[in-house]
């Protein structure tokens, strides 16, 4: 089984995140880069599928050279090898352009199963898995909190507003995961050492047969017109409960016409 897990480096949500004033893209130098949290769950799920059904786990990331830190993290968790899609021409790609570039890379690598986190903490669009399924013509098994394989068929539980849907398809398929699916492992010391020796192949846009006109800022399908820091919320009223806290809160709600 050829499992490809897509991971992304994102600015740490615990630090202040910014857009660049020049080209209005994410300022990747302003904050520490970390692996997107949901990608860790994706890596974990990929490793569990491999442990249960055999095969190989390839990490795929698109991002600047700095993103190798994130690749190493996934390799240290236990993935076998990695492909780094890296090219200056990709800078500023929006969701459509990113899905196009990733789909081209996935076609090059080949896959039975593609696994992603359902959303990244920076752009939070939640679009990539659905777009990849569309571009690859593969079944969309997204928002999974459980994945089961049996031969060539795969079943997931898809998180919904009312609970979940049980969804079935055959392989190859595109799966995205939510955070309750598993508990990602910590890389062991041995894993960290081994990761240093694992193969990381870099692909430029020409290698992946990506049309330069369809990616990057110039190829984007959408643009940021302008942006500004949100005005801070006005300071509120904070009271200490002296036995009447609930009543006072009710008074406040009444004054705001909520009751």
């Amino acid at each position, binding site marked *: 089984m050829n499992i490809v897990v897509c991971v992304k480096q994102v600015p740490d*949500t615990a630090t202040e*995140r*910014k857009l660049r004033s020049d080209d209005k893209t994410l300022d990747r130098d302003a904050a520490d880069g970390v692996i997107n949290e949901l990608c860790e769950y994706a890596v974990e799920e990929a490793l569990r599928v491999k442990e249960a059904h055999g095969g190989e786990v390839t990490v795929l990331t698109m991002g600047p050279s700095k993103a190798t830190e994130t690749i190493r993290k996934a390799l240290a968790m236990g993935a076998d090898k990695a492909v780094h899609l890296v090219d200056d021409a990709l800078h500023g790609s*929006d*969701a*459509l352009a990113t899905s196009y570039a990733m789909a081209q890379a996935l076609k090059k690598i080949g896959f039975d199963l593609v696994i992603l986190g359902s959303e990244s903490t920076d*752009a*939070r*669009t*939640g*679009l990539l*898995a*659905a*777009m990849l*399924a*569309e571009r690859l*013509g593969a*079944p*969309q*098994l997204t928002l999974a909190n459980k994945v089961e394989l049996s031969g060539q068929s795969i079943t997931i539980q898809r998180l919904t*507003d*009312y*609970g*979940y*849907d*049980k*969804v*079935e*398809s*055959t392989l190859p*398929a595109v799966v995205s995961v*939510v*955070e309750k699916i598993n508990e990602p492992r910590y890389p062991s010391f041995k894993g960290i050492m081994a990761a240093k020796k694992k193969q990381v192949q870099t692909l430029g846009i020409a290698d992946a047969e990506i049309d330069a006109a369809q990616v990057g800022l110039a190829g984007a*399908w*959408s*643009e*940021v*017109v302008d*942006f500004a*820091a*949100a005005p801070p*919320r006005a300071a*509120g*009223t*904070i009271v*200490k*409960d002296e*036995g*009447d*806290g*609930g*009543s006072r*809160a*009710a008074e*406040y*709600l*009444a004054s*705001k016409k*909520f*009751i």
Partner: protein
Amino acid sequence: MAEILVLVEQVDGEVKKVTLELLTLARSLGSPSAVWAGPGYSADAKARLAEYGADKVYVADSAEIADYVVAPKAELLAQLVGSAAPGAVLVAATAEGKEIAGRLAVKTGSGVITDAVGLGEGFVADQSIFGGGVNVHSRVTRGTPIVAVRPNSTAPVATAGAGAEEQVTVALSDSARAAKIVERVKQEKGARPELAEAAIVVSGGRGVGSAENFALIEKLADTLGAAVGASRAATDAGWYPHQFQVGQTGKTVSPQLYIAAGISGAIQHRAGMQTAKTIVAINKDSEAPIFELADYGIVGDLFKVVPQLTEEIEKRK
């Protein structure tokens, strides 16, 4: 006036509030056409859509559309984008709505904007990013603008539209039939409004202490007609189901009123509720960061404050 397609969200044939909001928004930008996708269509549903401004109602109510994950709805919309050449397509910015938007964008070679909290002239969208820290104006530059709009971005206003019905048949491709829904499992917690749509949300966190104690939160929610939410600490502990998690890796809500009880206000929680109009916090730690956001905060024990608040509201009803 440009035709604006609005994908209808419905539960068992009942039109959801977010759709009425999108129709209201579409009316300010052109002529709204509601798109019904899946079974459950009725004269009542049509009347509701027309009441909120739908000039046209496209109806594709074959059961098959709801039998597979996302792709059939994207194919239906792509077909309508081809035949009607609309000015824009609006969907609700729910997890599924965004996935539909994503596939539609690929199919039609159009740009897509997600989580808009407003939409103005030239289809310039307002977005609030990085957990509410930065406000952005953005727009689609190629193809038909596809915009996923967050629930509670606009107040729905009734203004009659012509409501001309047009049946649509869509021949699903094989790839749209690739991921089949074989079972729907409902794990609903009472008859409460849906979290993303609710005007009022009452959320509980680690301070609530146990699954049983969430009954306190539910009771307060029920007196207010509110939805219940939970922090990740509470869903991780298994006290409340995951679909009710508010925050970075849960749902984003923008209600009129958000009440947080026993929640510290970590940045990842704030990312999901920062755009609430009014925020009330109940926490025993006066230093809890949630108080930085609160319009009204009570420093105290939630096991005393929440029941008293519930009782006071009951009395005032």
